[in-house]
């Protein structure tokens, strides 16, 4: 993977199945050409802040939107969100939580940390596909980055 190529959507998702379903939905709706999927929070932070395996990546080169799962091994989604918002360069990066959790405390905590949107993955695949396509459409095509 070219280290400084433009990324439109960064998908951080530990479940391969969910990731596959999400990518399939995004590809199907033709909203994004460049999708990067990472498997956990640690990897995500390295990618965003140009550390570890991604040390040659520029911090200035950020995706149009980050789709972030909450429950992940090592570093979870809320921590990733916290780091993103704590750093000036990434503080305005659009982050959408895409999770199975309907827990109120997760929702509240996420908004407290400054998430742009919180989407609960629908169990029903049709609705899931629809939801992911709409997210992609909105953030990649409609939303104006700061």
């Amino acid at each position, binding site marked *: 993977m070219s280290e400084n190529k433009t990324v439109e959507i960064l998908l951080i998702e530990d*479940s391969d*199945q*969910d990731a596959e*379903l999400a990518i*399939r939905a995004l590809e199907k709706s033709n909203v994004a050409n460049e999708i990067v999927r990472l498997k956990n929070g640690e990897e995500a932070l390295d990618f965003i802040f140009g550390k570890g395996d991604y040390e040659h990546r520029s911090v200035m080169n950020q995706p149009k939107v980050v789709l972030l799962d*909450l*429950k992940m091994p090592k570093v979870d989604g809320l921590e990733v969100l916290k780091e993103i918002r704590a750093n000036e360069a990434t503080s305005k990066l659009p982050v959408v939580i895409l*999770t*199975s*959790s*309907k*827990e109120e405390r997760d929702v509240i905590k996420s908004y407290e940390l400054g998430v742009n949107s919180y989407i609960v*993955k*629908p*169990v*029903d*695949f*049709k609705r*899931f*596909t629809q939801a992911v396509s709409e997210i992609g459409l909105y953030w990649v095509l409609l939303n104006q980055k700061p």
Partner: protein
Amino acid sequence: MQFSFIEWLNQLTDSEFMPHGMCYLWQPATLWSNVLGDGVTALSYFLIPGLLVYFVQKKENLEFKGVFWAFAAFIISCGVVHVIGMVNVWIPLYNLSGFLKIVMATVSLGTVILLYLKLPEALTIPTPGEIEIVNQQLRGEIAQKESLQKELEKKAEELQNTIDALKEVQSIAKIGTWEVDIEEMQCTWSDEVYRIHEVPQGTPINVEDGINFYREDYRPIIEKAVNKGISEDASWDEVCVLVTQNKREVWVRAIGHPKYENGELKKLHGLFMDINDQKIATDKLELRERQLQLFVQQAPVAVAMVDHEMKYITASNKWYKDYGIEGKKIIGRSHYDIFPEIRKMKEWLEIHKNALNGEGMSREKDRFARADGSIQWISWKIIPWYMNPGEIGGIIMYTSDITNQIQYQEKLENLNEVLEDQVQKRTEELNNANKELEAFSYSVSHDLRAPLRSINGFADILEEDYKEVLDDEGKRLIGIIKSSGVKMGQLIDDILSFSRLGRKALQKTDVDMNLVFNEVMRELDKGESEFKLAKLHSVKGDLSLLKQVVTNLVSNAVKYSSQENKSVVKIESTQKDNTIIFSIQDNGTGFDMKYHDKLFGVFQRLHSEKEFEGTGVGLAIVKRIITKHDGEIWAESEIGKGSTFYFSLPLT
């Protein structure tokens, strides 16, 4: 020869001589001068003894009466001689004359002898001068005696006055004196003793009478005292009851002493007093004192009274007990001698001083460090007491030993602390358990959902991507996989919301149930049901939870009526006492009241999945929410005729 008096007389008068006148030659001058001289002398000599006899007779106590008689005889004999001398002038009776002269001589000589013998005695007879001196002395003595006499009389008068006064005093003081003659066993009583016995004065009384005046129970005492007085020389002082002549009972005091004369016991004497009034007054006072003492001693509080020198006057038994001074003699002793530790407690000394100056004080809880090192907790009140208005006699101290109370309190506090610790520990454990549960449900909500989505998603993809390859049976099977996945998702959601209810705190507000029902009905209305909504009461409750209740019940009503031609759902509310009862009635399939118990259990269903879809959690959630609101839920039904679900909510 026999003596003859006549013959002797004849011889005396017989004369042969010439008359003596012859010698005078009858010369008248010589003759008459001698005769007259003799005559006058003789007359005088006869008169003198007469006067002497007269004198002697008049002077009764005259001494030397014999001498006077001798003089009288001597002078008479001289007179007789002079008379015979005159006779001899004319008649010569010289023998007689001689005889008479011898008689005269004898008498004269006798007188001389008598005089001589009496002379020394006569010399002691004072002269008038001496007598005068003696007389003067005598007069002085007499005067002195007279003044002494007067003084004596005055003294006697005074004595009489004193005796009278004494009698009066005796009468007023009702004290009398008595005496008993031991030989005669007879009593001598003073007036007052008679009066006390109510016996007429002067009535003779013997010892037995006297003793019988005492009341029967006192007689042995007095008898014994009297006997001891006689036999053992002992005095007595007894207080007894006397029964007077008028049968009146009187308290008396009898004092007696033995009385000796010349070392021999002769009498008993003493005092007798009527002490009835004093005795009754004293008895009353003593009774009052005893009552007060008893009252104080038996008081169930620790109370003590001290004088202005802090010396104990009285104290209750509890006072002794509370301060561990039982058996100690404290009355009359200083508070600070009984509790020397207080001498070092400046604050208390100050409080006592203030109380003695009229300023009472009290305290709910005070620490008393005892001399033996122990600590006593007391609550106390100190007030002054007044001898006369304005004159403080001392202070009264009330105290209550609250040591046990304080200890209990401390124990309780310790226990509370332990309990609090335990509660905290339990709460922590509970919180941990809750956290674990939350983590569990979080996992369930997240992790169970993800594979479910995969099942659904990939089944979808399979159906989509392999549409051409799959026959109808294959498509039907994929459909089963998909609907099962959806159902499982629903089940997970229901379980999660049910478990979430348990830990969610109610957020109560005023809830307009009309709005809630209207909103729910709008959401559920598919045009298949007719809703009949009456005007409903408002309640206090958690809006979102109550909405869930209404949603579940109304959707049930609609669901179980779906097989009817026209389902009618009737909603009403009534107030009963302090609760509002809501009812949701449908005309649906109903249920067997036999299974009423299972209606509100989790995963309990009365209908098959085929008949009516459902997870069996909805009514369990409803029951849980209503119970959390302190309400109740129940249902009535008849198969084929519909069901009515009721739930009640408290007004406040």
